[in-house]
């Protein structure tokens, strides 16, 4: 070995600098049913679950910079939070009111994803496939067929992955017609367990490298399977 090597431990390579690039983003949209039937304990548990979700993401040094969450509630359709990293958490304090315009919410949500992707592209930010989680305890009170077609189309084009979670008396038959992936029934009001699972899944998705397939861990501990 020659002794005038100039690499690492010695000073000369201390001069190496790195490029600064924006973190790739991992978008997650939550479509939340806030219709009248969610009043009381369900909505309280949902709010608690969302708070915990943000708390979890904030404890992870990569997820906090990469995972972007948007909240859209329906009953009526309302954008609670635009896509933001978990650093910008605010407490949504959802209230149960109104009916269940699920079709409109899904359509608006898909639009939201499309706009966000355009913003990423315009700013040279790379991103992962967006996830949409629909959480409902009822059945749509509006026309949902167009929304269902949009979900199918988006899944086929791999534009996003759409998951439906049914709570309590949710109409699982309609959810099956909307979601290409098998809808999952929440065990009781285990929102916290669900969001714990979701934050873990987002953490691993947000650190996957090219060529990695993102594997969702089975929905254990919160689903009725």
């Amino acid at each position, binding site marked *: *070995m*020659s002794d*005038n*090597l*100039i*690499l*690492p*431990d010695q000073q*000369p*390579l201390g*001069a*190496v*600098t*790195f*490029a*600064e*690039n*924006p973190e*790739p983003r991992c978008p997650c949209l939550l479509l939340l049913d806030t219709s009248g039937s969610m009043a009381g304990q369900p909505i309280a548990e949902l709010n608690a679950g969302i708070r915990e979700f943000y708390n979890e993401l904030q404890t992870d040094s990569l997820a906090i910079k990469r995972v972007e969450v948007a909240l859209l509630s329906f009953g009526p359709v309302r954008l609670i939070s635009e896509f933001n990293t978990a650093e910008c958490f605010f407490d949504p304090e959802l209230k149960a009111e109104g009916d269940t315009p699920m079709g409109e919410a899904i359509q608006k949500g898909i639009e939201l994803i499309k706009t966000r992707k355009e913003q990423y592209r315009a*700013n*040279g930010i*790379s*991103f*992962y*496939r967006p996830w949409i989680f629909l959480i409902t305890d009822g059945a749509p009170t509006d026309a949902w067929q167009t929304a269902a077609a949009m979900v199918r189309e988006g899944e086929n084009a*791999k534009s996003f992955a759409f998951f439906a979670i049914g709570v309590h008396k949710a109409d699982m038959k309609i959810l099956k017609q909307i979601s290409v992936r098998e809808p999952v029934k929440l065990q009781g009001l285990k929102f916290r367990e669900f969001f714990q699972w979701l934050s873990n899944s987002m953490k691993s998705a947000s*650190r*996957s*490298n*090219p*060529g*990695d*397939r*993102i*594997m969702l861990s089975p929905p254990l501990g919160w689903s009725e399977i």
Partner: protein
Amino acid sequence: MRWKYTAASVTGKAHAGRGESGQDSYRAGTIQISDKDFFIGIVSDGAGSTTDGGRGAEIACRTLYTQITDAVRETHDLSGITDKDVRNWITVSRDAIVSEAQEKKKRLREYACTILGSIAGNDRVIFFQIGDGAIVTRSGPEYQTIFWPEQGEYANTTFFITDEQYLDHLQVHNAESQDEIALFTDGLQNLVLSFAQKKAHSGFFKPLFDAMKRNPECDSGFSAQLSSFLCRDDISARSDDDKTLVLAVRMTG
């Protein structure tokens, strides 16, 4: 004129943490034919969630390297090497992967890997690439990529030699002589390329090439230090993927 090179490949935390070995592979070397000196460098990154991506990368590097050295020994010159030759080498290497997959009764996609290659003589250089990672050369005071890393729509997607349409994503470039060439896998690309400016980051490449030029022989001690450099905390904090870096400089005299 002669080429000297160094190379290092380290397993990222993402694999090491799961007790897996790295999935990157490379082959690099120089050959002298009468008064001519050639550098050949091949780098490949086996896809993350495959069972045999690392094996695919190994086969690809070995078969490409052998074919290229044979071709250079035969022609003594790079001007006769065409894009068609590159496509043939790639196809032959892919066939080698296909036959191992068949023999082991595994799916071809389990051997998915990217390809980065360069063949440098004294007056010409041929570059080729499938997928992400990049090849960087010096151009005046700046450094530039030959091809921008080709990613799919999402941050965790790219293209592989095992893809059905692999030739559609093969990029080939024939250039005038170069003095400094770097090939690296995607584990390094976020640290050494600026995505907003679509440029290579000179602050990374210049000190490394300068160090190589100052060092009379880039021996195993040099590459060992390059490896520990790639394992440095400030690098692994920003990329937990495997990282492979091959550097070559052309020395005058």
